[in-house]
């Protein structure tokens, strides 16, 4: 079992976090293009703007640790270690995709890296994450599970059932609520009464609120909580204040009726997690502006190459349609 990564404090760690955030952004920019050019089947929900959440948390995890993800799951998937090629293949329904094309955007996951799945049912993964934590505890493993979900998902009753049990049984699970201010086309304050963290606290779960645009703050908190969860001090709850740059999904273009353009512009110009971390890295003389441009360009090229690869990749054979309905019982 690989030990928990320690708090990120050296150049290599910083650059990896920066790169992972840029990779998520590049992935999403390309996914959006695929949608706009009608090359991607269906719709997808962009993670752009929330990169510091997925990266700050997943950088505190080992590949044995588990996560559960959401309909807005590309960011979690990249941050947990997935490769672009298999991800784009999944988005296009190709055989080489992580789910052999059966899942698509809303079910994308690199299972080998501990991602138990994106989920198209809001709140649908809360039980799964808590169950993974129960399993780790019972089997004597030191794995921690992080359950990602949105502010809107806090309305699901399931959350309160499983938090109760997680608290009763001291399970190594961290509930990570990405509060991006909106639940589809509705502002969070119109659909969430009281305080979100107070709900977890009602079960005696230690709760924190953190700036979800600050990757270092997120990572520091996550590293601490993951270590403590591993020691049996869990569960924990984190509310991460963040923002989604795009519409609810790629087709949600005309959205001024529920979200002002100047609000969007403010977050993008003043609170961008990548720009701000890049500036910090420069200020600290960890990298030069040129080096950052170099990284950005390199990742952009990597993403474009993966898209081209996925576009040419074959679809699954139609014989696969009834494969995987049941798991094999062969030894």
């Amino acid at each position, binding site marked *: 079992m690989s030990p928990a990564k320690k708090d990120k404090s050296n150049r290599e760690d910083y650059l990896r976090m920066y790169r992972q955030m840029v990779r998520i952004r590049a992935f999403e920019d390309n996914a959006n293009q695929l949608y706009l050019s009608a090359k991607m089947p269906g719709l997808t929900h962009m993670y752009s703007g929330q990169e510091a959440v997925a990266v700050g948390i997943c950088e505190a995890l080992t590949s044995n640790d588990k996560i559960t993800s959401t309909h807005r799951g590309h960011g979690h998937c990249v941050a947990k270690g997935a490769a672009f090629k298999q991800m784009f293949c999944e988005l296009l329904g190709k055989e080489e995709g992580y789910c052999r094309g059966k899942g698509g955007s809303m079910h994308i996951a690199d299972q080998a890296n501990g991602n138990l799945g994106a989920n198209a049912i809001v709140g649908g993964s809360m039980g799964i994450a808590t169950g993974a934590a129960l399993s780790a505890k019972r089997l004597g493993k030191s794995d921690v599970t992080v359950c990602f979900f949105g502010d809107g998902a806090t309305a699901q009753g399931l959350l309160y059932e499983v938090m109760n049990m997680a608290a009763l049984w001291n399970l190594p699970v961290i509930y990570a609520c990405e509060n991006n201010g909106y639940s589809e086309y509705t502002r969070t304050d119109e659909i969430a009464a009281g305080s979100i963290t107070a709900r977890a606290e009602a079960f005696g779960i230690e709760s924190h609120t953190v700036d979800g645009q600050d990757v270092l703050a997120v990572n520091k908190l996550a590293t601490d909580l993951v270590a403590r969860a591993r020691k049996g001090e869990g569960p924990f709850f984190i509310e991460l204040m963040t923002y989604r740059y795009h519409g609810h999904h790629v087709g949600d273009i005309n959205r001024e009726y529920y979200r002002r353009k100047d609000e969007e512009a403010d977050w993008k110009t003043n609170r961008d997690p990548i720009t701000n971390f890049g500036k910090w890295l420069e200020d600290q003389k960890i990298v030069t502006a040129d080096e950052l441009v170099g990284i950005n360009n390199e990742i952009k090229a990597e993403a474009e190459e993966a898209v081209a690869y996925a576009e040419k990749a074959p*679809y699954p054979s139609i014989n696969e349609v009834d494969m995987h309905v049941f798991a094999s019982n062969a030894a």
Partner: protein
Amino acid sequence: MREITLSKAVNEAIAEEMRRDPTVFVIGEDVAEAGTPFKVLSGLVEEFGTDRVIDTPIAEPGFMGIAVGAAMTGSRPIVDLMFGDFLYLVMDQLCNQAAKTHYMSGGKLSVPLVLRTNLGATRRSAAQHSQSLHALVAHIPGLKVAMPSSAYEAKGLMKTAIRDNNPVVIFEDKLMYNDKAPVPEEEYLIPFGEAAILREGNDITMVATSSMVQVALAAAELLARDGISAEIIDPRTIVPLDEDTILRSVRKTSRAIVIDEGHQSYGITGEIASRISDKAFYHLDAPVQRMGAMDVPVPFSPVLEDITVPTAESVAERARQLLRGDLFHAA
């Protein structure tokens, strides 16, 4: 006659009934300003206000339960369930509570509510946003189930549903929201339990529901080129089911195919086929055929998804086989 979209037809039906009866209200996610993700309810909140067009948090079991309680106490709620796939979340309130209250109270209480939701695959939405789950609720005594196949039916059935004193589940085909059909300006209702004969024919009866009505009509066109005349029957409500119209047709044609987008096993096609076999046995020249969706979760990849549902070609081919006698000894 003017032509309007299915979406507009539903909207008109609800608006007319809300004007007629102040106890009618709409409750669900993003139903008010957003007018639902499919924009079906646009404009209602402007006319009726947020008192009667109520946005909820993402708490399906909660608002379903609230609707049941409201229905028991003098209101007529229309519950908006964004995707038919979310039925699983509301099953207890719908099936253990709403469906049984009238019976369990010895007829003293009733639950006049409408649950409007949708069905249908081939939107590239993967396994949790593509299901056709009407068989699940049709199985439960106490629930009525309507399945409009065009704007005309959608309006007339919705109005009847709202006036019904029982819980009614209406499934709209989400691929059909923008399809236009002639809809009279004057008020009309479509009674439950009255099938529509959409095309008369002598060689074979095709009983088709909802999304599969268009498929059956297109198949009938293909068959007509081969000189085969198909009769198409749309039951419009599967609970109650208009057996008489179906049986009368089969007694005339002596052959039948039942087509429905639910999974084929343990579903609507089996139920209707068995009623035909039971009650028109001596009139049949061949075994009744069932064509449902493949018994697999709906796959994302277009190449896989497209083969999971009946098509005009596959239905026409089955009809030809049936007429040739190929299926007489089918295993």
